[in-house]
Each structure stands twice: as C-alpha cells, then as structure tokens.
C-alpha cells in the first residue's frame, strides 16, 4: 500500500492549512499531516489575528470564521509597582476592511482553516507525527511517519517554532534560548455582559492590551490581554535566555502580573479555564538562513515569520501569507517540473509580494533593539515615577513638567543613552 502525493504539508496550523488550501485549489494533490488530535490543539497564542490575508485566501471568510471579537481599541500600559500608565487608542476604522483584526482561540480557528483546506480537496490526517524527511543526496522526496513512508515532489514544513524537521534538513540551526521566548497564558472566564460593561464594549467589539515594565519580573518581555467573547486571554511572553540565566519562575511572574490592580480590575471574579504555554520564535530574520531547498519549503513559525516590534505582535497573518506564497511557488515549480531549490526560488519573491519578507526586513532590527534591558526595567519605571510626580498635588509646591522629567531622569538615565535608545527605537520599530 504505497501512497504518493504531489505535495505534503507537515503541520495543520495557519501556515500549513493556508498552503494546503491554496495548493488543493490548484489541483495539486496534497497531504496535510497534523500531529495533534485535531488542528489547533497543539497551538496557542495571545492572541489576535490580522485578517488581511484571509480576504484573498477565503473570500467571504467572515461568514463562518470563528471570530471572538473584532479589535476596536488598543492599549499600551506601563506597570511599575502598583502604578500603571496607559495609552489608549480607539477607532472604528481599526475593525473595518482589510485593516480588521480579531481575537481568536486557536483550536477553533485552526480547525476552521484546516477544514477549509480539506473541503478544497486536501487530505487532512490528524493524530500522526512526521518523524523524518525522506532524503536522497540533498533532495527531499517525502516523509516518514512511524512505519510508513509517503513520497511527494514537495514537502512544505509548517511544523512550528521547534522546527525539528527543518533542523534535520539543515535549514535551521539548533534552537538556543536566545532564539525563543516562552509565552504563557491564562484563559479567564468573564461573562460577556460583565466584560462589555467593564470595558465599555459592544457585543462584537474587543480590546487588546500590551503591558511593559514590571510585568515580566526582571526578564525582557511583556504582557498582553485580549478580550474574547466571554473570556479574557491574559499572558506574558518572556525571554528564555533571561529565565534560565536569572533562574526565574515563570508561573510566579505570571501570578504577580495577574495580581496587578490594573489587571485585577478587568478579570475580577473570573475563573481560570485553562493554562497554556508555547514557544515564540524571537529572532526574526536571524532565525533561518534558508527557507528553500531541493524539494522543501519552510513556512510560518518554522521559518521564524513573526514580528514583535514592541507594540504589535504578528504571527498568524504572516504564517497564512507565507503558506499562500509557498503554494504559489509550488504551482510555479510544477509548471516546469522543477522542484529543486532553483525551481522553488520564486518563493522568496512571493513572500515579498505578500509583504511577509518586506515587513520582516523593515523590522529586522526590532529583536536586537528589544534585547535592551532598559526598555523593560528602567524606562517604564522612570515614566511612572514622572507620572506620579506630575499627578501628585499635595500642597508641597509643584514644579514644572520639564523640571520633574530632568529631576527623575538625572542619575538614573544618562541623557545620551536615553537619546540613543529613542533614536534606535524609532529606527528599528
């Protein structure tokens, strides 16, 4: 009982399912293999999905896509001790047209997208882990799963951040702590009417919060909070390097974050429904030297396609777009019957056309910039101390704002360093 497909996609996350869907539409016989019991059960994110690639991939996606809430309000919050300083941006345009973004729960969203791929003709198999690639002198020609082998002209690796097969194929270096962060999340039940009342939201609107400062307990990282229909996703992304170097306990950091008054105010009375964690690839373009090899393409988190520029996190949209780019490259390769790295080389061009590589390159310096510890400790603290002084009126004589700023910054943040950090920030983010 031998089996053969034109293309095998490893992993039915957003990147894999998008690739399989686009391939199936072009009548490329596609096997989509997922190790989880169902698509999405091994995935987790903050999180929010920027919807722009769905408009091309699935016209009419809004009709049955499991959207939690469309994000109409963005927050950036600095925490220090018990104090917080927040920026809030609201605009109805945020949720409209191609700029729309929505909060989602991965088991539901990933399952929806995988089923679309199946409906288009891809063979979706779940509960099977791919152990190895079939290689023949530098050319990949299939996969091995348990006792079985399946041949294909092309294997698309959509296997996620750990990327074991990409490592096997020499397309990715061994993961180091510096290359990944750990994301942890609590899904907290808050009934819809309560949530909407607390945040002043309509029944389809949602809010997204990004937290910096005391959040990450001395490690570089940040917190987030996203509103789902009747729950809240509250979590942290912290640098693995810092966690291991400083011997931090992530659950403790998470607990202190959730106890902050500005967070408690939103989740009070809520029951924790589940606790989950996931790796986040953090090096951007530094992650992977190559996404293309003979018979193989790498997409999504496995290729490191994730942008964290401090105020937005993008992963799912880049994953979906990279899946679409891979499918385009595969169809091109099929026309010439050439699945070598050269035949697949248009993948990179398609990644640019879809603005995946372009955006990754724009924010190429962000990961390096975000390794600056002052961003997570000194500057948020400084901001809050300034705010404290600014807003305290207790009859003891009020200085001007500029005096307060210079007084607080003096000795703590050398002016030159501060200016440098601001300029570097502007350049990289």
């Amino acid at each position: 009982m031998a089996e053969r497909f034109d293309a095998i996609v490893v992993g039915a996350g957003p990147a894999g399912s998008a690739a399989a869907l686009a391939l199936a539409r072009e009548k490329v016989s596609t096997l989509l293999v997922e190790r989880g019991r169902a698509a999405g059960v091994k995935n987790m994110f903050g999180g929010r999905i920027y919807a722009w690639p769905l408009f091309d991939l699935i016209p009419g996606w809004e009709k049955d896509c499991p959207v939690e809430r469309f994000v109409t309000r963005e927050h950036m919050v600095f925490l220090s001790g018990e104090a917080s300083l927040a920026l809030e941006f609201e605009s109805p345009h945020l949720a409209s047209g191609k700029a729309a973004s929505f909060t989602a729960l991965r088991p539901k969203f990933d399952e929806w997208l995988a089923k679309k791929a199946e409906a288009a003709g891809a063979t979706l198999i779940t509960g099977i882990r791919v152990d190895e690639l079939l290689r023949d002198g530098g050319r990949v020609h299939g996969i091995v799963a348990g006792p079985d082998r399946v041949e294909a002209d092309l294997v698309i690796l959509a296997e996620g951040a750990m990327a074991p097969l990409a490592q096997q194929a020499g397309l990715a270096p061994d993961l180091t702590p510096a290359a990944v962060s750990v994301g942890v999340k609590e899904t907290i039940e808050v009934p819809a009417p309560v949530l909407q009342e607390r945040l002043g939201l309509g029944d389809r609107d949602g809010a997204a919060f990004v937290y910096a400062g005391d959040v990450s307990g001395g490690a570089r990282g940040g917190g987030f909070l996203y509103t789902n229909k009747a729950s809240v996703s509250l979590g942290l992304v912290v640098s693995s390097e810092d966690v291991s170097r400083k011997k931090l306990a992530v659950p403790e950091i998470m607990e202190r974050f959730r106890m902050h008054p500005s967070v408690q105010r939103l989740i009070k009375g809520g029951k924790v429904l589940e606790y989950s964690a996931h790796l986040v690839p953090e090096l951007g373009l530094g992650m992977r030297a190559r996404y293309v090899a003979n018979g193989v393409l790498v997409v999504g988190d496995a290729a490191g396609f994730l942008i964290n520029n401090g105020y937005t996190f993008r992963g799912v949209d880049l994953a979906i777009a990279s899946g679409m780019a891979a499918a385009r490259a595969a169809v091109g390769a099929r026309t010439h019957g050439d699945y070598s790295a050269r035949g697949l080389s248009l993948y990179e061009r398609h990644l640019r056309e879809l603005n995946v590589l372009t955006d990754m390159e724009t924010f190429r310096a962000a990961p390096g910039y975000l390794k600056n510890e002052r961003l997570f400790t000194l500057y948020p603290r400084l901001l809050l101390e300034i705010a404290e002084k600014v807003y305290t009126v207790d009859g003891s004589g009020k200085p001007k704002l500029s005096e307060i700023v210079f007084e607080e910054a003096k000795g703590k943040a050398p002016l030159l360093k501060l200016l440098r950090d601001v300029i570097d920030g502007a350049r990289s983010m």
Partner: protein
Amino acid sequence: MPSGTLRIIVCIKQVPKAQELQVDPKTQTLKRVGVPSEINPPDANALELALQIKDRQPAEIVVVSMGPTSFDESLERAVAMGADRAFLLTDRILGGSDTVPTAYALSETIRKIGGYDLILCGEETTDASTGHVGPGIAGHLDFPQITYISEIKIVDGKVRARRTAEDGTEWWETAMPCLLTVNFGCTKPRDPTLLGKIRVKRGGVIVHWSCADVGIDPNKVGLKNSPTIVAKVDTVHLPARARKVFQGEPREAVAQLLDALIEDGVVAL
C-alpha cells in the same frame, strides 16, 4: 481469497473512556453522549493479537461491531491500526439489547460475512463487565471456544492458545473455525498509522448493515427481548481526606503524628 490467507473476525465495542466515566444520576446508566469514547480495551488487545498474526502470515482482518453510528469512530481507528474492513450492525430496534440479543445479532452478522477461520473477542467490556457475548457467539455458531487467552499460535492449521487459569496458565489446542476471548492488557495495542488513516479517509472501508440487511428477527432483539435489566448503579464516594497538619519541632510533630496514627488504629506498637 487466496488459500492460506487466514480470515480473522474481531468483535469490538465502543465504550466511554474508562478515566472519564460519568453516571447520569437520573437514569442510573452511564453517560455515553458527549463523553470521550474508546475501543473497549480488551477488544483492542484482541485486535492487536490479530494484527500480530497478520504480521507473521497472510491474513485478512474484518472488524465487526453492533451499535449506533457513533461507533464508526472506533471502527475507523481499528482500520487505521491495520484491520482490512469493518461492518457495523446499526439499527434502532437493537436499542437496549442486553448480552443475549447482542450475541445473537452478532453471530447472525458473522454468518452473513461468512468464510471465517478465527473469531476474536475481548474477554469483557469495561462498561458492563459481563463477559457473556464472546461465549454467546460461540454457542450460536456452535464453535469451540477458548476464553481468557493471552497468546495465539497457528500451528499446522490449528489454533494453540495460552489460557489464564486460576492457578496458572494452560495451553489449549483446537481446530478452526473457533472463537477465542482475549485477556485485558495482554498486549500493547499499536497506534494507528498514517497509511491506515489515509485508507480510512479514502472511504469504503466501513459498511453499515441494518437488521433487515442481515436477516435478524426483530422479536429477538431490543429492550423488550432482553432477559436482564440494569437495576441500579451505585457510585462509590470516597470519604474526604482528614488533612491534619502537625506543626512544630520535628520531634514533637512526629510524636503527635504517631499518637494520631495509633489512635486511628493505623499503626500499632
């Protein structure tokens, strides 16, 4: 069927997952809807033994079950593990059948499939634990039966099986066709494979039959024609743990702990 191909029938039942059993307080029966299911573990052990025979010699494995269409989940898993085909006898009139109509209905289904050499069943189900159906089928088909077996060898066209007896094990030999019931936990059932799952996806491996398709007499099946009923299901409630904490200096705390244990009759000095 090429001669020399052993034709094995494995009877399986889909049961609620053992770790996640729930009793409906109103009807005093096991909740089956919305609770995760699995192949009855002894049946999975039987299937694994059949697959091991197929590893060693040409064999065809046909899986048979009786139940609602939700049982397809287990039949698909059995095919994905390596069984060749599956038949599900599914019909409303079978509802509420106890082991007597079940043994009758399954044996009629097996007769209709025909051409079998060996029938394997799990020793009993985890949700009813009667152990009746295997022997019942053997009775209807008038086959020799060997129960509680953990190993099978096919030697010179005969079956040799290792049987667990109260004080040890026995080896039995019998001619085919025959029926064996398989011990819980005697094998580690293999995982479904990728090629197996693709076969299932392609379709055509599971056939549904109604009682009319098989020629089953409606007056011999269903709740009305079941000689036994479930009178009551009791749930065992474990007493709450005492949770006493003994604080203080280790010597003192240990002395207090010891006193408490002696008082409770747990320890005697």
